[in-house]
């Protein structure tokens, strides 16, 4: 019986670890994402040059969004508009944005 309790404790610990983004602020993320809607919120919207669709970001995976925004912030990804956006974001902003975007379901 104690072994089972132990397993439950482990499971609980695991679940808690998975939701370790709990300290991310969805509300703050949502407020920040308002800006993103200017391009990412327009269905079918395209970059002027070169001409390709602005990607769908609602529902994208958390860590990938953090990595992408951090790369823009550091100037490691080329897109000028996104670089400019990234420059103004703190690491906390980035995590909050990622938490909100990854929480969205179609």
């Amino acid at each position: 019986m104690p072994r089972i309790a132990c397993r439950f404790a482990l499971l609980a610990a695991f679940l808690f670890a998975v939701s370790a983004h709990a300290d991310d602020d969805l509300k703050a993320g949502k407020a920040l994402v308002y800006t993103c809607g200017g391009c990412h919120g327009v269905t079918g919207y395209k970059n002027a040059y070169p001409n390709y669709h602005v990607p769908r970001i609602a529902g994208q995976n958390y860590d990938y969004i953090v990595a992408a925004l951090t790369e823009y912030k550091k100037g490691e990804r080329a897109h000028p508009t996104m670089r400019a956006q990234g420059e103004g974001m703190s690491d906390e902003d980035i995590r909050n944005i990622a938490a909100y975007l990854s929480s969205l379901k179609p």
Partner: protein
Amino acid sequence: MKFITLFLIAAAFSGNVFAAEEGAAAPGKSVQDLAKTCAACHAADGNGTAAQYPRLAGQYHDYLERAMREYKTGDRQNAIMAGFVKTLSDADMDALARYFSAMPGKLDDLAKHEQGSE
């Protein structure tokens, strides 16, 4: 003897075919075959849940193609992706982008999710 000559001609000809497709590392590979490599991280249905890898299913195909192109030129830096795209021709990248884009996905434009709606 005739057979051997024919074989040599055929071999020489197929060599030319390959040369004509320069840049295509795997001539004749179907998009399904190509996609198997992607599936290791992005999942076969393009909806990988490992958070460090982006979901591909339902993404705009021209954006996916653009991303692969940028990994090739170095405008986007990722050691894993750079290695894979090196083996892909323009036609391969186009085919893969359309393949994953057409899959039913969880990605969406932000349009429905702006302030006031979840």
